[in-house]
């Protein structure tokens, strides 16, 4: 568990030790508890991080380890099988500070990030503490009641509609109470005495009137609810979509597309159902219970007592049911998802399944999962039978008791037949809202979970925001990375002190093994992420001071596998420039060497490219993407492995297009295929986030370093470079 200084649940001895140890100006940032001791046995130790030092304490408060943060270069985690180690790289050497199990890894990752923020990134402790406070505030907000209140606040713009819906519902409910009362009069004053024909007509007319008005009210209510539904889902989905457009890539690294889609679709749907139907029905049920309860008591207090007997039974029964029901339902969902996963797997990998001759095995596996799903369904049924029949029986017994004692009262002339009929009718109207209420209450945990998932996105901080002093910059194309450090997870650094200057119009190649930080470098240039330390400058201006729109307008990127929108080729190319003319689109396609293939398509530039551009080949997609970049006319161009997924012929076509595209622009080419870098002015070689070599192709070959090894490996047809020791480049 990770504690913050405000938390009160620390061991008293630890608290005493800590307060005695702190020097002046020293304040606690975080405390975390491990679950494996120094002697590699199960047990707890505390790690205490202050703004000056890092301690490891035993449960008894004994200091096992003490390190001054000024001596720490960097903190990392080492993951072994079933055991992780927090490692400090200090000026005095490497220290294995603490052991813990993989279950604690997330906590210690956060702690490592904090240590690195304090040491490597030199972020002031006050700023770190403020962020931690914010994290705590967010956690506090996650209370279920607070979420429901927040949901209600979200409905604020629609209060008039909500009020209308409630008013109509109340009127409809009141009208619904009248028929049993009229029925009682009908029986007692018309049917039993067999007289009073005029009253019969009046009652029938009143019943007809009530039904017609109820029908009209229900139609209006349905329309109001529909409008409320649509407006509410519109607001939720638009807010989520707006947020998703501006969230940083880090968010997308964390959440899968499926999870985001599920939040925008099914979670919103669930919340909508609760806010419009569920909530309305709950309030109406409470009103109905109260009003019918009063009528019942007025009619016969003794019979009302009998009628209330099943309520404690159903409350106890449903509470017991809820205790274990989630287990059964969870198993059911799990087995459904197992079945779906094998279905989707076999559909997406059907070529593999067929080529391996695994069809029958897949059928057997699918049948097995279907069986398991059916079994889970039967188990749910069996479980439900332990409760619902008993609860149902209590209602039946209660109604029989009411008929028995009520019947006796009728026989003794203490109650009229009409009154008894009306009483039983009201009694069943009383039970209905109870059952509704119970089922609505059951849905609340699901609604709060869905709300948490949605607010998680809406509350997500925008990592990359535009500074108020950001200005429009007309770029010449000079780029500088100044001592840039960057980590995706706060633990492992993708870039470590990278410094690099690129002149306007210069063509730079970036090479290095996978994971060396090549793509990270360009992502920082595009401000997809912010570096933790160091600066990225364009024409001497920090990119944080450049308007995001200006930055994106003047930098273009062509990816290894460009994704196109499912619109026409012309519309895709025109994304590069607002209001592009037809001639500009054609000229861009010609420069990108795409015009010829486009004109051979029956619908030419009006051809729809399909989802993600699937109707075009890789090379064609690439050329359309280049045309888009050309139309943008950027000052800085980034080519991320642009030809690596193409065959030799397509590569030649795309290379011609690239020549036209890069002419006169600052160009950064990321490449695995070193042949792509023949004509660049300079090649930067990255390894594990550090620039290890720099020079022209010929110079680097002569140097006999990593580049030469990569080149030789490629020439010999190997895919992996031969490992070599890291050399840190002096800034």
């Amino acid at each position, binding site marked *: 568990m990770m504690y913050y200084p405000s938390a009160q649940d620390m061991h008293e001895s630890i608290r005493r030790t800590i307060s005695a140890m702190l020097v002046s100006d020293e304040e606690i940032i975080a405390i975390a508890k491990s679950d494996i001791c120094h002697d590699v046995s199960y047990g707890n130790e505390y790690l205490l991080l202050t703004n000056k030092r890092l301690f490891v304490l035993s449960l008894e408060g004994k200091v096992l380890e003490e390190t001054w943060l000024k001596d720490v270069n960097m903190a990392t985690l080492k993951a072994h099988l079933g055991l992780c180690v927090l490692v400090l790289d200090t000026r005095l050497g490497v220290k294995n500070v603490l052991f813990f199990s993989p279950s604690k890894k997330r906590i210690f990752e956060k702690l490592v990030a904090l240590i690195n923020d304090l040491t490597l990134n030199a972020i002031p402790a006050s700023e770190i503490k403020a962020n931690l406070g914010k994290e705590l505030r967010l956690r506090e907000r996650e209370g279920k009641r607070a979420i429901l209140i927040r949901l209600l606040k979200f409905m604020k713009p629609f209060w008039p509609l909500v009020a209308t819906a409630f008013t109509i519902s109340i009127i409809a409910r009141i009208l619904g109470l009248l028929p049993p009362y009229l029925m009682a009069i009908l029986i007692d004053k018309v049917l039993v005495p067999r007289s009073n024909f005029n009253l019969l007509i009046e009652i029938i007319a009143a019943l007809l009137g009530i039904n017609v008005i109820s029908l009209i009210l229900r139609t209006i209510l349905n329309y109001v609810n529909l409008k409320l539904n649509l407006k509410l889902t519109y607001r939720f989905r638009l807010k989520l979509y707006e947020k998703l457009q501006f969230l940083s890539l880090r968010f997308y690294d964390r959440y899968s597309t499926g999870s985001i889609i599920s939040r925008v679709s099914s979670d919103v749907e669930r919340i909508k159902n609760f806010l419009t139907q569920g909530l309305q029905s709950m309030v109406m049920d409470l009103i109905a219970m109260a009003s019918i309860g009063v009528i019942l008591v007025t009619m016969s207090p003794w019979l009302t007592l009998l009628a209330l007997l099943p309520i404690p039974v159903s409350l106890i029964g449903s509470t017991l049911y809820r205790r274990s029901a989630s287990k059964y339902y969870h198993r059911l969902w799990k087995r459904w998802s197992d079945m779906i996963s094998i279905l989707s797997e076999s559909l997406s990998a059907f070529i593999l399944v067929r080529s391996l001759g695994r069809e029958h095995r897949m059928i057997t596996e699918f049948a097995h999962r279907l069986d398991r799903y059916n079994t889970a369904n039967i188990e749910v049924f069996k479980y439900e039978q332990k409760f619902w029949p008993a609860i149902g029986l209590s209602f039946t017994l209660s109604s029989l008791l009411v008929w028995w004692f009520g019947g006796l009262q009728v026989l003794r002339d203490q109650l009229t037949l009409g009154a008894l009929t009306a009483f039983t009718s009201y009694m069943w109207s009383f039970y209905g809202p109870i059952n509704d209420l119970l089922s609505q209450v059951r849905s609340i945990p699901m609604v709060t979970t869905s709300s948490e998932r949605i607010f998680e996105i809406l509350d997500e901080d925008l990592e990359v925001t535009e500074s108020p002093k950001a200005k429009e910059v007309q770029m010449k194309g000079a780029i500088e990375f100044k001592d840039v450090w960057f980590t995706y997870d706060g633990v492992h650094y993708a870039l470590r002190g990278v410094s690099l200057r690129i002149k306007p119009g210069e063509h730079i190649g970036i090479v290095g093994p996978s994971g060396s930080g090549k793509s990270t470098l360009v992502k920082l240039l595009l401000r997809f992420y912010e570096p933790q330390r160091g600066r990225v400058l364009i024409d001497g201006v920090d990119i944080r001071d450049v308007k995001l729109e200006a930055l994106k307008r003047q930098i273009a990127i062509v990816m290894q596998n460009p994704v196109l929108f499912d619109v*026409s080729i*012309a519309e895709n190319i025109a994304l590069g420039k607002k209001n592009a003319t*037809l*001639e*500009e689109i*054609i*000229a*861009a396609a*010609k*420069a990108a060497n795409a015009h*010829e293939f*486009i*004109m051979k398509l*029956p*619908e*030419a*530039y*009006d051809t*729809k490219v399909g989802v993600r551009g699937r109707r075009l080949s890789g090379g064609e997609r690439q050329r359309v993407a280049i045309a888009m970049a*050309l*139309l943008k*006319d950027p000052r800085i161009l980034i080519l991320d492995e642009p030809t690596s997924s193409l065959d030799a012929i397509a590569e030649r076509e795309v290379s011609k297009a690239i020549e*036209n595209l890069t*002419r*006169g*622009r600052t160009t950064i080419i990321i490449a695995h295929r070193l042949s792509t870098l023949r004509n660049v002015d300079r090649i930067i070689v990255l390894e594990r986030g550090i620039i290890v070599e720099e020079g022209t192709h010929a110079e680097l070959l002569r140097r006999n370093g990593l580049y030469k090894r990569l080149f030789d490996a490629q020439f010999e047809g190997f895919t992996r470079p031969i490992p070599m020791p890291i050399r840190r480049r002096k800034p």
Partner: protein
Amino acid sequence: MRGLKDWIAQLRILDPKRVKIVKADVDVVDVEICGRLYHNVKPRRPFPLTHPEYVIFFKEDDEEVGILRDYRKLDKESRAHLERVLNVIYFMPQVKRILSINTSGWTYKWLVETDKGIVNFETWSRCIRIIKGKKVIIYDIHGGVYCINDISKLDTRSLLWLSVLM
């Protein structure tokens, strides 16, 4: 730097007043441009759905001769020649009325009245493309293409049929 402007400058935009279609065969034309006669020229629409008036002429060896921004500005005779050829290359019957659309399994069977006569065809459910909110293109499962030039001019019954797939 050779920018986009240079590429645009290279486009040969033709003046309709100086272009004359002198002869039309099935899918090629003889065209006189600025006094020079080109034989067996292939007219092609780069934007056949969104800007059908825009035409590019190609020689037999696929070399581009020039671009006409709006062929409708040609003289009457040239325009008639060109339209005859374009109607062959871009055979897209204009739907005047939808008589019925019936579902059969995963496909939809259409019966429509077009400017070329009454025709039956089959489509998948995702077969409609709307251009600029007005024009509707219908693709059948075999590659046939049908067009409704202005959806607002369609009769109510046809619109009702069409709404099934929109």
